């Protein structure tokens, strides 16, 4: 078992050697690629490969086969295959990013990874450091593919790894938005807030007669922890420095946690699991819910026509979500070329319009908004046009590999803080734990 497990490793050490030679070759010929690739690039040394014969690529994505996401994704695949008869695309969908990441880890460990994977920056960084990826810049033959500049600025920034490698390509993004119960807003004479202080006042004002202003899930991967990060960033200090070091003990972060503690003590904030904000809003027990813009369908479902939703951008700094695509170096040159074709296709304005209208994700480029495929969707959902430009300024967590783990520690601090622990000491613990992870990883 041990020997077997080591085989892929030995193989890739050899591959890394080959990559080094390839990189030298590239530099000598002054060809594209730009030397940012590190040890990650592999077999494709020559000029850009193009698809010459029939080729099949596999894509592991987080778009559950059966949902509206999955259905729209299949539509994209069919459209792509019709345009590129040489290429067959097989999607291997998982229910969520957690399962997808676990599966990809097992697959990489066993050496049977797909051509294309999907995930968040931090996980992608781990893959790259393990020498498993081929950078987008290598595939495109340039550090700045033409389409890159058409993306929203926030989306562009999200595609790079700490070493400056352009390693990912986007498909759909979401922002955190606030869903309000319109009737409750107007009954209380309130308006949607544009800063966090007003937001808190609104929540407190609405919290009476069995209504709790807002309900959040303080565990990792969902809205609560992101809200905490947004509060801190709005106050001037993000949760992480640009090198990925945690800044959990900054005064901004302490104040952010105290803000939420204060709401809870005033009865304006409750906690739950499984999208509790959606549940409370739908049950007319909450004024507002902070959630992903891609969750609009579910919010509406929970509301069930009992009242109208008002959807606005989150006050002040917003966080962006939505995993990117990346390409594995184990794929053949033909597959890599085909994968790049596919990534370009789905991120193009026309397809982004179809994708957004079908799934509720925000398009990654503003050019999609003027496409005909999107016009009726935008008419039905006027809030989309209002919030989408937030993708220019939205923040994400930095891509260092430990950041993913540190998110769960910040979530623990949030939970501790909301169940009575002093904000400073809860955040101190998280800071220590995150630094331990950081040290273990570097």
């Amino acid at each position, binding site marked *: 078992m041990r020997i077997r497990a080591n085989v892929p490793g030995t193989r890739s050490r050899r591959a890394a050697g080959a990559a080094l030679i390839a990189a030298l070759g590239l530099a000598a010929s002054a060809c594209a690629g730009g030397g940012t690739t590190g040890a990650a690039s592999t077999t494709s040394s020559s000029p850009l490969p193009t698809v010459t014969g029939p080729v099949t690529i596999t894509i592991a994505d987080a778009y559950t086969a059966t949902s509206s996401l999955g259905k729209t994704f299949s539509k994209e695949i069919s459209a792509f295959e019709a345009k590129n008869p040489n290429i067959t695309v097989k999607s291997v969908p*998982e229910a969520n990013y957690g399962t997808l990441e*676990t599966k990809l880890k*097992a697959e990489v460990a066993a050496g049977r990874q797909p051509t294309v994977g999907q995930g968040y920056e931090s996980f992608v960084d781990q893959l790259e450091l393990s020498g498993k990826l081929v950078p987008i810049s290598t595939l495109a033959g340039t550090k700045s593919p033409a389409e890159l500049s058409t993306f929203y600025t926030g989306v562009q920034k999200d595609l790079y790894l700490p070493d400056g490698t352009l390693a990912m390509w986007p498909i759909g993004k979401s922002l955190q938005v606030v869903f309000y119960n319109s009737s409750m807003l107007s009954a209380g004479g309130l308006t949607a807030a544009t800063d966090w202080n007003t937001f808190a006042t609104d929540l407190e004002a609405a919290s009476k007669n069995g209504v709790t202003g807002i309900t959040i899930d303080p565990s990792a991967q969902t809205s609560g922890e992101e809200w905490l990060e947004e509060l801190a960033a709005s106050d001037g200090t993000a949760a992480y420095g640009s090198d990925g070091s945690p800044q959990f003990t900054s005064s901004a972060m302490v104040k952010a946690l105290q803000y939420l503690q204060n709401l809870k003590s005033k009865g304006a904030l409750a906690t739950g699991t*499984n999208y509790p904000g*959606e549940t409370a809003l739908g049950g007319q027990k909450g004024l507002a819910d902070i959630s*992903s813009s891609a969750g609009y369908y579910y919010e509406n479902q929970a509301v069930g026509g009992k009242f109208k939703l008002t959807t606005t951008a989150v006050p002040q700094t917003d966080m962006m979500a939505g995993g990117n695509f990346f390409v594995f170096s184990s794929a053949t040159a033909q597959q890599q070329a085909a994968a790049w074709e596919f990534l370009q296709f789905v991120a193009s304005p026309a397809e982004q319009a179809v994708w957004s209208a079908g799934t509720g994700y925000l398009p990654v480029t503003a050019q999609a908004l003027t496409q005909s495929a999107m016009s009726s969707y935008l008419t039905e959902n006027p809030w989309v046009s209002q919030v989408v430009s937030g993708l220019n300024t939205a923040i994400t967590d930095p891509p260092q590999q430990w950041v993913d783990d540190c998110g769960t520690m910040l979530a623990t601090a949030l939970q501790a803080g909301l169940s009575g622990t002093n904000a400073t000491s809860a955040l101190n613990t998280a800071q220590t734990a995150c630094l331990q992870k950081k040290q273990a990883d570097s």
Partner: protein
Amino acid sequence: MSSSTLQDAPRPGHEPGRGAPRRAARPAARRVLGAWRGWSALRKAFAILLGLAFVFPFYWTFVISTSRPGGFYRFPPELIPEWDWSNWSRAWNEAPWIRFFLNTLFIASATVLLCLVTSVLAGFAFGVLRFRGKKSLMVLVLSVLMMPGTVLIIPDYVLATDIHWVDTYWIQIVPWGASVFGIFLVRQFFVTMPQEILDAASVDGAGRLRVLWHIGVPAVRPALLLIAINVFMASWNSFLWPEIMTNSTNVQPVEVGLSTFSSDVGTDIPGLAAAATFTTLPLIVFFLLLQRHFIRGALSAAGSVK
């Protein structure tokens, strides 16, 4: 743990559970408090009430599953069905449930069969045969119980890849095709079986395997029933393993379908309630049809540890 600790013998073939439910109501409680005849009725009513409390969550799930849009989201909770089947049709159309269901049925049955075979053979070896290294082998097998399963997933995935079992029925059946519990249960029965029975048969010239089949297997039948039920349910219960080991709906079991029902951006509670109901319902029906066997199996577990 030495094997001698395992020797607390069951009485061979003794199956205390059988018939227990039918034994006449005679004894202590009634004798003492018998003066008041209402006592027995009260006890019955209390028992039924408790039983209803145990099954109420299932009923409530059904209520949620037929609620009108936004139905779950109210307080006090709805306790009477609203008979809106739209959640059911929405959930039903979300996934190939019948396929999932047949997969589960096939995987669970095959696992049970394999487990019965391996348990009888190994239980016979450990209980009857004498051979070198038996004790160490038994300790090794027992140690299997102690390892947390989650940690084995990645090494097992690597192995599964090497033997090309990823995304097949095989990987969902074979690794679960031996049960420590089953082996020691069967062994327990054999240990206490009069040696002469097995010996006599051998002298008669019957092959060992035939002895095992004709005399051994019938004698351990209650153990087999218990193993079958336990393994069947364990197989039905597994989800992390098949979720990692399989990709295609062609081979995935129903619990994976259920656990992947909610997405990253929201959850459809009435739809999920409908899915939980119609995936669990066949199992409940199956249980009710075979409840006598289920219960007898569980009851006989007591006999095997005496």
